[in-house]
């Protein structure tokens, strides 16, 4: 897995040349917000020709999922190459060509738990941005207790039959497929009767209803399963052992939400925004808080890199990923509060665009496990405190 410095230099030079030639100018503004993200999927409407072109070119090189094996649509990059990749992308402020829950979550789960057939079947369409996935974990009233799965999934011999309801399913109304936790054994202990299943959203009996958030947008839905039938083979891992997959995925989800911290919001460095603020230079409270936030941001980003290195080196990150989730999301909330303060009354208008981003961050420390759940995980599993 480890290249010589020379090999890395060659890779870097080639990549830089490729990016220079292939990344459209319009895609070099470093933006990464709700209005510019390319989510892909069957019904995706590209916001520009440049967005389409950029995706297509990256797909040919495997750069939508750079670390995935080549046979599944990736570029097969090592950890060191991945760092170079991200550094070169950042150097020209390139947008991500594609983002999706398929990349962040289902992909890693399938790579770890899936059969070879499943990988071949599901991964390449994700890498190409052809199929958009959503996740079905939470259920109404269950809150932080993700294992409290009531959605019933019965073995009907030649197919599964599922009935129930999920909530907080991100973009379920725009997704092609859903990966979900369902209860396949109601008599087993809470964590032992859950399976991790894959369902086409076009299947009869699946319906969604968007939930409007305080930020005015609706990234989440309620999703209903009403006598939904689906094939037996659409289970990842062992039947009734879906909690193992879920736990593994939660780790990835935590990292994802945490990683989003650095680039969310306006995309501009915090300091630049504060510097622009009328009172930023003279108000010691705002400036002092911004300095603190900048220090913490850089250190949290370094921590994310360190953990990735550790994972690459074979060390398990495991429960400690709860730290990344906790620190990343809490920090992100602080950052967006500061951006709002720096914006003064201008930022209070919906049209200004800052407010939705600010409000959206409030969900970061709730979705994918609340900060309180993260702290409890750390206290019990990492620190070994009783109870």
């Amino acid at each position, binding site marked *: 897995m480890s290249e010589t410095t020379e090999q890395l230099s060659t890779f870097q030079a080639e990549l830089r040349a490729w990016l220079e030639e292939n990344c459209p100018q319009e895609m070099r503004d470093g933006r990464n917000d709700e209005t510019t993200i390319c989510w892909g999927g069957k019904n995706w409407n590209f916001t520009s020709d440049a967005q389409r072109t950029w995706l297509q070119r990256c797909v040919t090189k495997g750069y939508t999922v750079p670390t995935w094996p080549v046979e599944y649509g990736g570029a097969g990059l090592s950890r060191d190459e991945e760092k170079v990749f991200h550094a070169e992308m950042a150097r020209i402020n390139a947008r991500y060509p594609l983002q999706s829950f398929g990349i962040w979550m289902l992909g890693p789960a399938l790579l770890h738990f899936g059969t070879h057939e499943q990988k071949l079947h599901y991964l390449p369409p994700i890498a190409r941005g052809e199929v958009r996935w959503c996740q079905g974990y939470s259920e109404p009233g269950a809150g932080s207790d993700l294992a409290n799965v009531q959605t019933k999934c019965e073995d009907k011999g030649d197919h599964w039959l599922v009935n129930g309801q999920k909530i907080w399913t991100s973009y379920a109304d725009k997704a092609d497929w859903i990966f979900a936790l369902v209860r396949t054994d109601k008599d087993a202990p809470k964590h032992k009767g859950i399976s991790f299943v894959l369902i086409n959203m076009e299947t009869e009996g699946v319906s969604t209803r968007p939930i409007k958030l305080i930020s*005015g947008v609706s990234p989440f839905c309620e999703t209903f399963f009403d006598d939904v039938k689906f094939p037996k083979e659409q289970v990842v891992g062992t039947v009734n052992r879906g909690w193992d997959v879920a736990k593994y995925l939660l780790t990835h989800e935590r990292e994802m939400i945490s990683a989003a911290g650095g680039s969310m919001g306006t995309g501009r460095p915090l300091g630049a925004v504060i510097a622009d603020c009328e*009172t930023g230079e003279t108000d010691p409270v705002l400036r002092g808080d911004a300095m603190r936030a900048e220090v913490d941001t850089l250190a949290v980003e370094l921590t994310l890199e360190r953990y990735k290195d550790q994972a690459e080196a074979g060390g398990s990150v495991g429960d400690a990923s709860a730290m990344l989730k906790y620190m990343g999301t809490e920090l992100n909330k602080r950052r967006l509060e500061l951006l709002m303060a720096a914006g003064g009354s201008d930022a209070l208008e919906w049209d200004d665009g800052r407010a939705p981003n600010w409000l959206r961050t*409030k969900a970061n420390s709730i979705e994918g496990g609340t900060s309180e759940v993260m702290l409890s995980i750390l206290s019990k599993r990492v620190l070994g405190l009783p109870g």
Partner: protein
Amino acid sequence: MLADAARGFLDEAAPVSHLRRLRDEGQTEDKALWKAMADMGWAGILVPENAGGSDMGHAAACVLATEMGKTLASSPFISTAVIAATALRQVADERANAALAQIASGDVTYALAVDENAKFNPEATQLRGDREGNGFRLNGSKGFVVDGGDADRLLVLARTGEALTLFDLPADREGISREAKSMIDSRDAATVSFADVEATGEDVLGQVDQAMTVLKPAIEAGQAALAAEMAGVAAGAFGMTVEYLKERKQFGVPIGAFQALQHRAAHLWCECEVTASAILNAGRKLDEDPENARLAVSLAKARATDTVQLAVQEGVQMHGGIGMTDAFDMGFYMKRARVGAEWLGDYGYHANIVAQARGF
């Protein structure tokens, strides 16, 4: 007593659902509600009795503002009944008394047009009030004019040479154009432009070049009332949160049984209590020693700004997913708190005044 009466009325006439309905209908104003408030003497709470007011003072105005904050009642109370009334009282001539009577009756509403940039800074006013003949010609624009979209009249701060002058103008004066903004708190705020607006000496509130004589007490009264409203917003959000902690079950027990949440809730309660003291003190000081109320007012606004931010942030977080949904009221509190944090000076602005008053 005043608080209890106010609470009774507001729970009935202006609960959060009232603001939600206005928002969903694209409105920012409920004339009937303001009329009802006027009938109870709220519009005239700072208007002298001989002008038809109830003249109950700033401490009482703060009590009302706190109660309005609890239910997020939408009205021009602070702009009209507090700021404009206080400004007009500084003048107390016949014309001002007539204007005060119109405030007390609920017939006329006001907005304060001061801000020109993203941060509160009256001294930096650039809107020009050039002398012309016996009068003035106003040119420039004001942003973040709270309640300015619906107001009948505007108090406009203008630069007249080196000094500042305060004008009291009808909002429909020729040359004035208003653009209502879509604000996150679903309340009224506007950008107001002035193109060759003619004003006479009659339109000047107080003396020419002496805006601050009239404006300083008015702004301080507004800041105290806004601080009180924010304390109410904090109390409203906190109340919802404590109820939720008692009701909501997770892992088989009420989440209020979890010690980490208990301690955070208790800490928040302490912050609310301490802020309440600062509000009470500001109201009292404005009534008893208004010349020297600057420190007390800034202390109240700083504390309230800090406390309400904590209250709404903990409110959303402790409610979990539901706290994030538009269908739930907590988001309204969070958005109003954000607007209240900026209006009439943010935390740093007021903390700096406190520090200066304390000699550093």
